[in-house]
């Protein structure tokens, strides 16, 4: 090995060691533990059971299977809402970008992203309280409807979680889409105007194709975030009522830190990781294809 190669190796060695210590080793250890029946209070008596934890989780445990289903239901619904509302908001901010106040409004509108999900969950817990919450008051006073337990009934609870999640992350999608809209050349708008295109044509033929890459990037990032969704569930519903809002991350937490079943919890964490990798790979492949198509067009 020549001197230059040794130097290069020495330069990347600390990073490799760092990655090995904080990412790769815990992951490998997690995979190792997932093959055992292990409880935190008696780790010295853990015993090897092979694939059994995976088999139970993927084929027998209806709570975990529901958690996978709920995670994707919440993810897809939230992201769809975020894209629609985010696009509308981005369009509004794009149209008023020349106004001095637009910067201030834009800053205020992204405040939800800056809040920690725990705080967001707590705030909505109070807002949605059936007897003391402002939402119940509004619904009762203005619409004459009896307040219900928004977080205590299966369907309303799921809808509430989707709304809370969307409320917090729509501004994120808005910022991405606004950045995309800013990249659309002004000439295209002028040409469309001369050709007599209406708003719908502008949106579908110019804007959406131009911002598709930004949109996909947002979807990828939000998908990863939604697969890890935990805090809001922890504060508001704890996966309930029943298992209506049980999601994968909360299931893993419960198994690891409430039941202290380290083997099952590790298996669940590994499954989440594999699902994340698959979903991200698909999304990134799509993203690259869109970018390539955009380059050719």
């Amino acid at each position: 090995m020549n001197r230059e190669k040794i130097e290069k190796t020495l330069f990347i060695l600390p990073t490799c060691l760092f990655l090995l210590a904080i990412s790769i080793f815990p992951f490998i250890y997690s995979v190792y533990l997932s093959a055992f029946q292990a409880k935190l209070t008696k780790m010295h008596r853990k015993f090897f059971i092979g694939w059994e934890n995976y088999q139970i989780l993927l084929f027998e445990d209806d709570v975990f299977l529901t958690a996978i289903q709920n995670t994707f239901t919440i993810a897809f619904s939230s992201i769809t809402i975020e894209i629609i509302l985010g696009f509308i908001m981005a369009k509004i901010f794009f149209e008023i970008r020349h106004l001095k106040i637009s910067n201030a409004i834009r800053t205020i509108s992204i405040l939800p992203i800056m809040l920690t999900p725990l705080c967001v969950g707590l705030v909505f817990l109070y807002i949605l309280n059936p007897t003391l919450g402002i939402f119940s008051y509004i619904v009762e006073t203005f619409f004459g409807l009896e307040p219900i337990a928004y977080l205590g009934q299966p369907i309303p609870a799921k809808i509430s979680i989707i709304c809370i999640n969307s409320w917090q992350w729509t501004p994120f999608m808005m910022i991405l889409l606004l950045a995309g809209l800013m990249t659309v050349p002004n000439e295209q708008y002028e040409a469309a105007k001369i050709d007599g295109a209406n708003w719908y044509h502008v949106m579908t033929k110019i804007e959406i194709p131009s911002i598709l890459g930004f949109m996909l990037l947002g979807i990828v990032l939000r998908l990863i975030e939604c697969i890890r969704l935990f805090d809001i569930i922890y504060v508001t519903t704890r996966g309930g009522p029943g298992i209506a809002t049980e999601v994968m991350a909360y299931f893993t937490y419960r198994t690891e830190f409430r039941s202290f079943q380290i083997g099952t919890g590790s298996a669940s964490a590994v499954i989440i990781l594999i699902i994340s990798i698959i979903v991200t790979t698909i999304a990134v492949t799509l993203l690259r294809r869109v970018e390539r198509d955009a380059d050719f067009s």
Partner: protein
Amino acid sequence: MKKIILFLSIFILPFSSASAVNWSEELGDHSGVDLKVQSIMDPYIDAVKEISPTFTSVTGASVTVEGFGYDGLHEKQIVACSQGDSSYDVLFVDGIWIGEFVEGDCIAPVEDLWTEEGTDMSVIAWDDYISSFAGQAIWDGKKQCLPFGGYWHMLHYRTDLFEAEGLEPPKTFDDVLAAAKLFKDNPKYPELEGGYAMNMARGSAAGQQFYEWIYSAGGKPWESNYPGSPDAYADQRGLYNSAESVAFIEWMQEMINYMPPGVEQYAWDERAKAFTQGKVAMINNWSVRTPLFNDPEISKVIGKFDVALFPHAEGASSVPPVGGWIACVNKHSKNIDAAWDYLKWFASPEVHREWVLTGAPPSRHSAMNDPQINAEQPWTPVLYESSLRAWQELRPRHALTFEVIETLGIEVNKALTGEASAQEAMDAANKKIDRLLKSEGYID
């Protein structure tokens, strides 16, 4: 004034010739030790903080009491134990966690400590503990911790409302249902949001609720567990889907119609708050929270409530739930001697009495029969009767208790929120709990 009386009654005790125990002789010198106590954030925690300086004056050890929520406390204690953490010296542990703590080798058994030390057993006064509660501190045939905060369930009801309607306090499930129905949405009582409130939140809250009621419903959770059973853990095959269990869940499904909106998310605090704020006519509640209903700072029902024995189904008898907290020495503590001294001092009959007079729950026969305690906590006679009728194996106490209760709580909550029928939910609960127990070899 109360503090002065408390100070005089406790502080001078070690030096008083009339004192039953000479604490200066019984306790060691622990000057310089900062004893850390890890506790649940239950209403008694202020009373623990209030009396602990007396221990400091006798032994020189300062005492820091830190409180946590129920689930958080369990999580912290087990994780700390698995790491051999010595941050806390004294652990207040829920009696039902005892099997898990013993299995994890987290605690130094008090029976070993008092044998090694040759402790004066009149300080421990084990026979003075009410047996249904004392049993919570025993596991593997050994006394592991000292019981101190026994709770029993009583039915709490609003005397003003019951008198106005000419009703007697409910004795049976049917009485409870009829009264709940009467008070729900009754225009005469617009401040009421429901007739009754129960713990219905998914997880521990709903799971524990099942165990609290099932014996009085005439059922039992598993084959060999019934009041008076010689060995409750001999046959743990589940009976969660027995006719009695399903009938009880169906009764709860009917009861939920007469409860406040949002009751599906009620746990201990929400249930007590609903009664304190005058929003429900009845609750079943742990006795530790009963003094709160007379607290002028938070209660709207002062002088308007009374207690009765836990209700029972027709043909069954009342088996009031028992629970509460036991004090254990952290096996990994660096101050085991000081921790043991604190335990025997704190749980002793005379300090227990003073602690109870500061607003904490009585757990000993002597405290239950104490005239001053009876005068200050007028519900004590009903509480005492409840404690004598209670069954110590109310909930499982083995190492899987938390998981079993959580699993059951999810299924019960599913039945209560309409995600499953009572039979479906309890069939699922039985299957899952049996599988759990099999995985750890509790059943074949």
